[in-house]
């Protein structure tokens, strides 16, 4: 069969990171092709390159056998490629028809929009692909699944034969997922080629004809769903090298540092994100949370930190309830935080390093004296962090954006560690940094654990999780579904728990 898309040796670098490292991908015409991989594996970058939103540093792209080079999405659209974004790009106050033609309006004399023409074209498209929706409905009145269908129709209306769907199931409830899959099969039968990103393995196995797995920016495998199990896929995604669990002796004490009791967190639409979660972390203990991304781990951390409101339940730090107090007080009481996205939540990029070192601790010694910032204190503390945590920088006055990703991360880890937190919330503490820096961060966490720090660790890297944790709990769809011993569990079993393929025997 003919190749709809062929990518050969696609490479894309960002400062400090290689997002795509000689990626090869070949998609046959008329198939449903899934791209799997953990967050940060390079899936989104690859799709953006294919859709012309970013340009590769090296490699060739072929669409329908012809070599192409896109410098903008409009060129990709002309070549018959359409993208359905994870976050819908629809105007709520317009009707379905208006949304579909937005930016591609057929016109008649004097630039007036030819709604008759648009309506009949939309009808043709809908019939050809078996997608029905009332063109006169207001988008704001539609369900999430219907809005997604509008997005798909929008792309088809522009003549796309190859559809890229970016995590289409992330926003859907199970019934809507089934509906989406029915539509996807329908599209395929009508001749469309579908390329979709997903990391929910059961879904991938249910719908895809071919699966390509990315890890650390490289293509690691291309498989057929009937040849593999969810276990195999999970192993491919996280890397199959078996970790060597750290045999350092336990430093766990009897003192409970963080206690979370029946925590319930919902989003604005009342959808449950964290569902009745309870756990304790004692001083000197690392509790790892395993789970496929998007199962409530990030929201759990936000709730403990205080940046996300709690619907019900209780959070206590050293026996003192902190459920309702503001972030600043929690941090002053000793909650440290290593964010998963250092640029978004961890740094003031244009500000000097010493100001970055103060962020989150600006109300505490040595960064402050009375109502003033203690510049000398802050600078000497930053100098200390620079030496202790090996932050490679000429001095502490340079702006944070001038540092490489690994050094930025070491600065953040150093900032949190030197503050001597009672509880450390570490979300993907080594994501996107090189191996050397990774080992240093691990050593830092282990050293602080020995001194009595309690750690809540979230990581997509199962080696890291197994190597650092004293206890691992598995989170699935907002619930804690299993507790496992890192000394005995295999990544394979962990992967099975994470995808729900295996359940804890009660």
């Amino acid at each position: 069969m003919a190749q709809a898309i062929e990518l050969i040796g696609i490479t894309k670098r960002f400062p400090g990171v290689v997002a795509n490292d000689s990626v090869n991908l070949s998609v046959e015409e008329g198939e449903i092709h899934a791209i799997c991989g953990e967050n940060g594996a390079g899936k989104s970058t690859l799709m953006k390159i294919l859709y012309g939103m970013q340009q590769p540093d090296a490699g060739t792209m072929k669409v329908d056998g012809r070599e192409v080079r896109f410098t903008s999405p409009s060129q990709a659209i002309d070549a018959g490629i359409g993208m359905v974004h994870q976050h819908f790009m629809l105007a709520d106050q317009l009707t379905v028809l208006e949304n579909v033609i937005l930016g591609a309006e057929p016109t008649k004399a004097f630039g007036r929009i030819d709604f008759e023409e648009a309506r009949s074209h939309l009808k043709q498209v809908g019939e050809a692909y078996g997608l029905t929706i009332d063109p006169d409905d207001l988008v704001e009145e539609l369900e999430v699944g219907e809005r997604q269908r509008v997005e798909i129709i929008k792309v088809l209306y522009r003549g796309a034969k190859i559809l890229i769907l970016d995590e289409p199931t992330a926003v859907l409830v199970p019934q809507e997922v089934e509906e989406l899959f029915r539509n996807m099969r329908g599209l395929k039968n009508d001749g469309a080629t579908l390329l979709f990103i997903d990391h929910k393995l059961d879904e991938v196995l249910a719908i895809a004809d071919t699966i390509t797995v990315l890890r650390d920016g490289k293509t690691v495998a291309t498989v057929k769903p009937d040849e593999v199990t969810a276990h195999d896929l999970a192993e491919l995604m996280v890397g199959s090298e078996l970790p060597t669990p750290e045999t350092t002796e336990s430093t766990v004490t009897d003192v409970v540092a963080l206690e979370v009791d029946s925590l319930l967190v919902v989003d604005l639409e009342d959808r449950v994100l964290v569902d009745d979660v309870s756990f304790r972390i004692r001083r000197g203990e690392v509790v790892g949370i395993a789970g496929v991304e998007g199962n409530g781990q990030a929201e759990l951390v936000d709730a403990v930190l205080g940046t996300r409101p709690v619907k019900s339940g209780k959070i206590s730090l050293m026996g003192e309830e902190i459920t309702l107090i503001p972030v600043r007080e929690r941090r002053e009481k000793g909650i440290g935080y290593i964010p998963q996205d250092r640029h978004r939540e961890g740094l003031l990029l244009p500000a000097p390093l010493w100001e970055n070192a103060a962020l989150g601790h600006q109300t505490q010694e040595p960064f402050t004296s009375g109502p003033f910032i203690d510049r000398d204190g802050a600078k000497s503390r930053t100098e200390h962090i620079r030496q202790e945590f090996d932050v490679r920088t000429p001095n502490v006055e340079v702006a944070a954006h001038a540092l490489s990703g690994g050094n930025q991360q070491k600065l953040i880890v150093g900032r949190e560690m030197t503050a001597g937190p009672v509880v450390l919330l570490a979300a993907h503490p080594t994501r996107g940094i090189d191996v050397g820096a990774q080992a240093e961060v691990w050593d830092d966490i282990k050293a602080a654990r020995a001194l009595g720090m309690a750690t809540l660790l979230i990581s997509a890297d199962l080696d890291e999780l197994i190597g650092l944790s004293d206890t691992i709990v598995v989170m699935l769809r907002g619930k804690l579904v299993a507790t496992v011993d890192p000394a005995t569990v295999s990544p394979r079993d962990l992967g099975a728990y994470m995808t729900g393929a295996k359940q804890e025997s009660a």
Partner: protein
Amino acid sequence: MNFSLGRRILLTLAAPVVALVFSVAMSSIVLLISGSNPVAAFGDMMSHASRLETMVDILNRATPLYIAGVAVAIGFRMNLFNIGVDGQYLLAALVAAHLGAMVNLPGVLRIVWILVVAMAVGAAYSGFAGVLKVTRGINEVISTIMLNAIAISGIVAYLVREWQAGGEILSGSASRVGTTPIPESGLIPDLNSVLEFFTREVGQGKELTGMLVIAILVGLGYHILVNRTRFGFDLRASGINPFAAQVGGVPAKRMVVSAMVLSGAVAGLVGMAEINQVGFFPANPIRGLGFTGIAVALLGRNHPAGIILAALIFAFLDISSGVLQFTGAASREIVVIMQGVIILAAVVAYEVARRARERQEARSAAEALGDIKPLEAA
């Protein structure tokens, strides 16, 4: 320092200088097209500005512009756009002038009372926009524009009639209508004696406003608050990266209200220069200082010293262009074109300079460590 401090300062200064030169060039072209001689026009402006009396006028105009610039800059520092400085200072000046005349206090106390009332009214009016933003999600740009209209054509227009003093009041050589005059002892004295200590006697009845001292204090206070205090740190952090600030414990909503209140308090002082000069709130006060303040803050990069330069440039253009009417070298409207071009050119030049500085920093950081990294995204 690995990258030279000198080069950094040069980069910082280069942008506004380029903007100024560019705007002079553009206005010269416009003058040539309209049949005027740019050399003569600028020459007239410069020679006019070199007179002591004109300099006093320039400083008197620069003073409220500086205060307005600082008021806007406080908001800018955390990505808040306070467009309502105009409404805030007019309302504040009116209420302060009225209450200043009504409440009987001895000398200095009355001066302080008037300033405090002005700051409180400005703070409250601007703070209202902040409260609307955090409780109802109303963008401060929209609300402050609306509040301007309510203040200027609503409240001020009404109250100035209600509180109008009977008859016409003599102010200098002209008689004007306005609120009850504040006793001379309740007005900030002019600085002519200080100025004359250095130069000659100031003629033409010109008075250098005492608000200049207050403006300098405002500038110092702004510098200390923003660059030296925890509050200022929180303010800047919220402006640079609101997400990082939030996880760093900065209470986002409280910061929005605080910043608007502070901005409004400073805005309340803008009209004080005029009140202290004429002695009451006139029925036709100087308007638009708040809008010029936005341009001044932009040109001055929200920097306490930068805003001084920007305020002086705008005041110079405003005041010295008056002479063109008499010499006939050009139409005085040419300065409006210049002011517009300066702002446009400054915005572009600052962005170019910022990128150059970032590249330079990244390169020197990488060089210092012996590893060169690619730079595609910031």
